[in-house]
């Protein structure tokens, strides 16, 4: 019952519901040390009103993907290939002037660290009002009223006075609320949230996550939610994309991926994470080694140097042949479906109890 269909077909028309569809995206940065393949052949779809979770470790390309969607990469050092279709419009070829009209209007972003993302020179109210004035042509007075309305919505106490405060007068949780207000001020169809709660405390994180969920119900935006925390994803997302070394390794509905994961990397992530309900008597099962360098990624399956199940695949396919990610609910792994099921039931599932 996955909603992420039609991914590999290069020229296939996007589904009726798929609002954003990314096709075979490749992003490369040229650096002094060589070419960094930050994103390498990534495809995914986001439906209207749904949340797509992207999970991965640092350097897996999850943030780069979304900066590229917004066109926030440095065009001098970056090459982007593939298609990013937003309601049929290809954002890769869209000129900067057009992008400006989309950003903050149709597509908005919430950043990880609200203190660096908000300008210290302007009041919070002005920063919220600015995109509204730019995109709707509203007057200063209207924009200010809108800012107060948004601040009320995201739960800032005394919004009429706090609208004139500067970001440093807000606490961490309030700043993140202000960021959300700023992102939602133009009623965007797509909201990209890049680790929006990583810098916050757990009790505040829980408030913000619930707030985002409730606001999504009200505004009906699609959300791309990027995080490294599987717990947060489990709470927020409808669909899940697991990224490793610039590629998607597993995808599907969030419940399916977390309850019956099919990729060794997802198994590793789940069994290396202590959980509140988990057993404390056995040690955690970490993934051996460390994430690969994107300058020189491993051949074949990028996960093979850290994978403990390569011996079950005939020959050296893991190190020579890149496993494809099928359509819909899929995992990019050479293990057969039966092998995956046996390994998961025998070795992985008992550890998750």
């Amino acid at each position, binding site marked *: 019952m996955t909603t992420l269909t039609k991914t590999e077909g290069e020229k296939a028309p996007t589904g009726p519901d798929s609002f954003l569809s990314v096709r075979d995206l490749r992003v490369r940065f040229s650096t002094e040390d060589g070419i960094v393949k930050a994103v390498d052949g990534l495809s995914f779809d986001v439906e209207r009103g749904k949340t797509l979770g992207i999970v991965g470790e640092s350097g897996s390309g999850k943030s780069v993907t979304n900066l590229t969607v917004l066109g926030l990469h440095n065009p001098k050092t970056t090459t982007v290939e593939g298609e990013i279709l937003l309601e049929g419009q290809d954002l890769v070829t869209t000129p900067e002037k057009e992008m400006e009209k989309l950003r903050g209007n149709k597509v908005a972003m919430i950043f990880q660290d609200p203190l660096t993302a908000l300008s210290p020179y302007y009041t919070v109210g002005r920063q919220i009002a600015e995109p509204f004035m730019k995109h709707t042509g509203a007057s200063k007075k209207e924009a200010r009223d809108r800012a107060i309305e948004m601040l009320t919505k995201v739960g800032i106490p005394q919004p009429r006075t706090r609208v004139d405060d500067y970001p440093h007068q807000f606490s961490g949780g309030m700043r993140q609320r202000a960021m959300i207000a700023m992102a939602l001020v133009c009623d965007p169809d797509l909201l990209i949230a890049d680790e929006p709660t990583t810098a916050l405390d757990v009790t505040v994180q829980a408030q913000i996550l619930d707030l985002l969920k409730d606001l999504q119900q009200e505004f009906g935006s699609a959300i791309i939610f990027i995080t490294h*925390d599987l717990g947060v994803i489990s709470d927020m997302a409808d669909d899940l994309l697991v990224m490793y070394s610039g590629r998607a390794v597993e995808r599907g509905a969030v419940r399916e991926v977390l309850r019956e994961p099919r990729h060794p990397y997802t198994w590793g992530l789940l069994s290396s994470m202590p*959980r509140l309900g988990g057993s404390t008597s056995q040690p955690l099962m970490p993934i051996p080694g460390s994430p690969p360098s994107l300058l020189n990624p491993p051949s074949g399956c990028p996960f093979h140097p850290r994978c403990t199940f390569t011996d079950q695949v005939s020959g050296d396919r893991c190190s020579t042949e890149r496993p494809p990610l099928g359509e819909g609910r899929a995992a990019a792994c050479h293990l057969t479906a039966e092998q995956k099921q046996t390994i998961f039931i025998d070795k992985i599932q008992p550890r998750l109890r």
Partner: protein
Amino acid sequence: MSDNLTLPAQQGSTGASTEALLKVEGLTKHFPIYGGFPIKRKVGAVQAVDNVDLTVGVGESVGLVGESGCGKSTTGRLITRLLEPTGGKIEYAGQDITHANRKKLAPVRSEIQMIFQDPYSSLNPRQTVGTIIKSPMEVNGINPAGGREKRVRELLELVGLNPEHYNRFPHEFSGGQRQRIGVARALALNPKLIVADEPVSALDVSIQAQVVNLLQKVQEEMGIAFLFIAHDLAVVRHFSQRVAVMYLGKVVEVGDRDSIYNRPRHPYTHALLSAVPEVAVDDETENRERIRLAGDVPSPISPPSGCRFRTRCWKAQDKCATEEPPLLQIGGNTEGHLTACHFPEEPSVEARSEDVVMDPALKALENDGDVSKD
């Protein structure tokens, strides 16, 4: 009620038992704030740690959890005497070290070591790994059998690094490997107590588990006591036999792992546990209570009177504002499980009939149209 037997028995020490290695009583640290012109005067104080009692037994691992600004790191620094306490008493192995001078502290310092949060800033980039791990031995004039270099190579092997990396520099290692170097340095003097201040929070998920396992191995095999400071409740639960929960400079609840995580009494512990996002690997995880506090932690410059949690608590009454609740073993708690609350919660983390939602924005959104309630 004495199901104290459920505690991991191998370490023998449960709660405030006889074999206390470290005993902290009424520990207080106030950082002064100066203001005024032209002569700066003390105008207030950040009450970072206020009247904290804590015991760490021999070979025991105690977790210290709380949100940022609750004083957990300051407590760690006070115990290692990197900061001078404003008040209270720190007793290490029966010896009062609260205001001990350099000379008196020297032998104690080698027994209390620290592991820091950020493996990038806690290692000197100009020194080789060998020098970094060797220097505690040089400072303390320790000459192990076979020489210091041999000992360093042993330590590197113990923490899962290649002994041949002796002459490498920190920048040649990844974050997880650097944290291992930090662990090796802490082990160099055969300490009895390690204060680990957020040792894994700067690491990636897959690497975190490697370091947690390493620390656990060290703790169990070498019998080192740990004060494990972290904000991640799941990691603390995995690592610690006893857990203390801090809020705004005070310990609000302390007890063995099972009591804190399955039978918490303090509303703040309930709120903290319910806020942890859990991966739903089965249906069981979905039957947890949902509590959403309003706003952030108040400023420790002027903390609320009485119970410090009362401004965000759903059970607060007049008594909470006037009278500070003492940290006691309240009725229904097992031995060693202390709670500082006038109106404690039921000892369960199961879902309640009605969620506690304090946040005004959430309340407004959820009531209107009844979204996301059922």
